[in-house]
């Protein structure tokens, strides 16, 4: 059992939680994730490690309520426990040899980006950040990320703050109009956003790393559910990733695979909302 030490609402249906998990904190690196299970009948779901404190033995996660498991998690309060919390999983992100990087986060994608930007800052890399969200209220972690980046650009779908449009529009402006150059683009967010960004950076010839988020189960390479096509190869996002070359990933296939259980996910959520199903507290 893993104790929730802190919990806060960052945006509508987006939460940040600090969880006591000393063994995970001992080894965690930016880019890695954990798999948790809220209660004994719960599903195993992956969430990125948004921050870690080795001394205090804590891991921070940021998550959005989208279905049953994330809703059950959001219902837990400080002082309560998460049944299972395993990690760190996946390969840490690598930043060796980089000088200037453009990091793009869409929605909760800002969460995994945060420790990466901080690590790059520590390594002396200049990082520009674009954060995108539906509207002002949905933007998260801007204040946390700001101290570690050179420039921060904001884009909202409705224009309630920052640029009125998508993160990809900002990317276009930075490269095509302002003539900015980058050694690498890092894009984390919804698959469609990563697909669009990768398509553009391919034309600009900027190497691009995306963080894939397929359906997972064990997180150790044993089930094959998380397979992603990267170039000619089939990779397991949980052990070979989650970071991959955005110019090689087959995003259309990834989107199809992620949607496989949509009907069942809907049913699970429905039974939860009908009440009586939650046995976790």
């Amino acid at each position, binding site marked *: 059992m893993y104790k929730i030490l802190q919990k806060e609402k960052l945006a509508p249906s987006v939460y940040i939680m600090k969880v006591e998990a000393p063994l995970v904190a001992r080894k965690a690196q930016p880019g890695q994730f954990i798999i948790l299970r809220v209660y004994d009948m719960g599903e195993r779901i992956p969430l990125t490690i948004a921050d870690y404190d080795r001394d205090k033995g804590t891991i921070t996660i940021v998550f959005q309520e989208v279905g049953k498991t994330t809703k059950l998690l959001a219902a837990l309060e400080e002082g309560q426990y998460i049944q299972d919390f395993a*990690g760190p999983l996946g390969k840490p992100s690598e930043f060796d040899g980089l000088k200037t990087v453009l990091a793009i986060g869409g929605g909760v994608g800002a969460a995994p980006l945060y420790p990466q930007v901080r690590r790059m800052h520590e390594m002396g890399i200049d990082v520009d950040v674009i954060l995108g969200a539906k509207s002002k209220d949905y933007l998260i972690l801007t204040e946390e990320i700001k101290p570690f980046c050179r420039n921060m650009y904001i884009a909202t779908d409705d224009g309630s703050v920052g640029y009125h449009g998508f993160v990809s529009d900002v990317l276009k402006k930075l490269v095509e109009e302002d003539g900015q150059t980058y050694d690498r683009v890092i894009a984390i967010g919804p698959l469609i956003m990563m697909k669009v960004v990768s398509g553009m950076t391919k034309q600009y010839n900027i190497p691009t790393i995306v963080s894939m988020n397929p359906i997972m189960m064990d997180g150790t*390479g*044993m089930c094959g559910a998380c397979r992603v096509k990267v170039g000619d190869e*089939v990779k397991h996002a949980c052990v070979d990733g989650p970071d991959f070359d955005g110019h090689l990933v087959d995003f259309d296939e990834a989107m199809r*695979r992620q949607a496989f259980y949509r009907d069942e996910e809907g049913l699970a959520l429905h039974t939860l909302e009908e009440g009586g199903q939650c046995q976790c507290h």
Partner: protein
Amino acid sequence: MPLKLERTPMREQDPVQRRRNFDEVALGYSPDEAIREAQRCIQCKHPFCVEGCPVHVQIPQFIKLITEGRFEDAAQKIKETNNLPAVCGRVCPQEEQCEARCVLNRKGQSVAIGRLERFAADYQMKKGIPDPERPIKIGKKVAVIGSGPAGLTAAADLAKLGYDVTVFESFHELGGVLVYGIPEFRLPKALVKQEIEFLKRLGVKFVTNVIVGNTLTIDDLFDDGYQAVFIGTGAGLPKFMDIPGESLNGVYSANEYLTRVNLMKAYLFPKADTPIKKAHKVAVVGGGNVAMDAARCALRLDADEVHIVYRRSEAEMPARAEEVHHAKEEGIIFDLLTNPIRIIGENGRVTGMECIKMELGEPDASGRRRPVPVKGSEFIMEVDAVIMALGTTPNPLIAATTHGLEIQPWGGIIADEATGATSRPGVYAGGDAVTGAATVILAMGAGKKAAAAIHEYLEGKK
């Protein structure tokens, strides 16, 4: 005592009913039936059956105790060499091991050793397993990685010798393949839980959610004061065929399918949160126990039709004979000498599988006749789910993070057969992690040998 020729049959759930439920198929002997079957054993002076058992269970001795109605003593007798008789009695490939060597087998009617083993173990469990003698602690820590049969056996033996044993398991649940692979209807999970409870009473500590290689390394374990390590991490990596269409939705590895169903209890969805897609026509590719289990699970998840697609003939199938028989009784269709070449889909979902007919040619390296495709015999099976049960290999996570641990080109950890010693002093390994996918009893045997070797190693270090 008259020699009874016929084996005493074991009661089973009716195939028509059981094909739609997850309750245990085989129901076990009653005490009378057990005694009747036990009396068939002629108590050989040179019991060949014992040679057939990888851990040399004292078969005539325990069977004799059953004839005397001393069922709990019989269970204790088995446990002198086999820590998990309730499991082995159910899942050992007895017809190739102990029962294959029984003298009565010449008439095709060997003593039902496995069933008797199961009976004695179940009887003792129902009565309540007596508390183990708490060994005197010798103040040395040993780490066991993986809680499958190999790890559990090593842990039990080391704990009995007085070591402080901690088992680290990557999943949230203990038991390895016994809980995530083999389905409830063949091995009730409550039994595995009881066996693990017994180890806890012996003083073994269990830590779940620890992926050695990620959460901790073997070097960390030594730094944390463990003086020896046993690796029993199994062979968990699935294989795919590398044919077109394998990334379509509805194509699973047997590992994913069985883990969703057994470990995550998808058959209870939506009461359990992990879903599995309902399929109407399912093809399972492979001919081993894993394929049989996946096929029978698919049937129990209300598939209308389930096919086993295997490229050789029934004689070459590696699955236990009893499970093949059970699968047939339940209505699984066997497409033998058939091999998939392509999976077909629409809108990203599986709709069919193209196969080719095979015939048997010359024997290959395994001694089995090699299947070769019959030209022009391609045909399309309409299916909406395909489960690949093609065998598994060991996970590279530990090897990749442990200095000086030598592995085979195919991923198996190199370990001495008699002791389990690896290339790294103080590190031992056994079970599927060393041999590749094998059997429960072989994994237990390896755990046992390694425990003895670890004891010798640590005694020497005094």
